[in-house]
């Protein structure tokens, strides 16, 4: 289930076709992931960045454990980025709906 649901958009007065909705939802999640990692990077020390660069072959479980250990604010970061993105959608809902 995507974070950006059709019902949420409907509550904001945005009605899109299924295809357009899928594109927007996909873009939403891609943007979220990118912003989250950029915020995480800002929290890292050079040593932690070095460790992160060596986690390319690590499993997701190991990456997650590393994140929880090294970025204590990771939950807050994700929550804030979700709120910021949803706020941007709300801010521009009329423009999205009008196009």
């Amino acid at each position, binding site marked *: 289930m995507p974070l950006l649901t059709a019902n949420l958009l409907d509550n904001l007065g945005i009605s899109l076709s299924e295809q357009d909705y899928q594109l927007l939802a996909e*873009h939403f999640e891609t943007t979220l992931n990118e912003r989250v990692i950029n915020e995480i*990077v800002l929290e890292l020390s050079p040593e932690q960045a070095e460790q992160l660069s060596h986690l390319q072959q690590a499993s997701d*479980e190991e990456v997650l454990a590393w994140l929880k250990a090294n970025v204590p604010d990771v939950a*807050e970061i*994700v929550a804030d*980025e979700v709120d910021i993105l949803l*706020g941007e959608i709300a801010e521009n809902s009329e423009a999205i709906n009008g196009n």
Partner: protein
Amino acid sequence: MTEKARRYLDVGSRLGTEPAPTPSPEDAQESPTDMPLSPAPDTIPTQPNADGLRVPDNLPTDPSLPGELTTPEATSPANNETLYTDAEILGKHYPVRQMIREIGNQRVHAIESFTARLQNVRDTPAKLRLGLVLSMAQRRVARKQAKLDAVNHLSDRHILKRRRLKKLQEAQRKLTSADRKYKTHTSTMQKRVENIDKNVDKRRAAYRKELRARRETALSRRAMRHELRGEGASLIEVRAVLKDVPKEHLERVGKIAAVAYTSEQRAAQARKHEQTQVNRESRSQTAINTNRRKAQEAAKEAANASGIVEELKTQTIPKAQESLQKLRKELAALDGDDPAYINIQVQIQEVEERINIYENRELPYWEQVAHSNRERVATLDTSHTDLVADLTARQTTRNTATTNANTLNERAQAHADALAKAVKEAANTAPAEPNN
């Protein structure tokens, strides 16, 4: 640096370039999308597509096209695992609390529509009555006007003309009053329907406002984190270290964090919803117990009152009547000047009054008490049936919520294992990444 990583750094971040200035909270408020390293500040679509809808500039419409910012799934074979989807991580059950919030506006709209239409149906007879009154007033004015026109040739001071003019004015006054009442009534009915859509807009505006406010708060927190973190040599070093890290790896880390957070959030919401359902079920059970207790009390009262009625009918009143007959016989056997005569007369009067009280006050009273308590028992039995049905529904909802919460909780706890397994399987089948 690989081409992919270079493209990511160019398009998606400022890693590897000059250090970005740390924004103050004020900067964040004014221009939230210009935050450092913000990879895609334009989340709002700006490019019209074939359907006329604006789609994001960097939306991956075709992942195979060069130069497009693509998702990790589209470019990295190692990240093609399907277990990344929320449906598999979270199950098909969406958190009910969020669902309720999302269907809230539609549901309230449906309830308001139903209520308004029902109220309008109830007001329709009054509207018809007022319309009839208005129509009659209009016809009366027309008649009075015609009568006045018929004596138009007379002097204005003529008594007949003055009387007809006065009657016309009276009819016009009534017409004005009827017209005002009809318009007020129809306007109320019309506004009732119009307000439904206005309320939808109001709720929508409130939701937008709430999301904007949450965004502002989040931006402030983000700016505060940046302030606390500070800029300096360490951040430059971090950028230098990550400069050659492939974009896919960084995006994967971001996605892992986002998925883990959202699955934990949803599991927490589901647990909260489950607790709400448990509380509701408990309240339903309490209501059933109270209902049964009241029903037992009412049945006891009814039985007690019926017993009193029965006793009055079969014992008390017949005994009093028997006593009355005896006294009357005694009285008939006595002479009028006998000293006991007056005494028996008084006793007869007292017994008659007592019988009268039994028959006209106590008997109806206790019959009414028995009747009302039997009715109360019947009403409580009816509501007991409803309460049992309600409890059954709540138990079903609670079971669903429990299952949902357990599922989400287990998945939130275990999704890392599943993802790790998928990553290993994908790594075994995928070609090695060219940039590692």
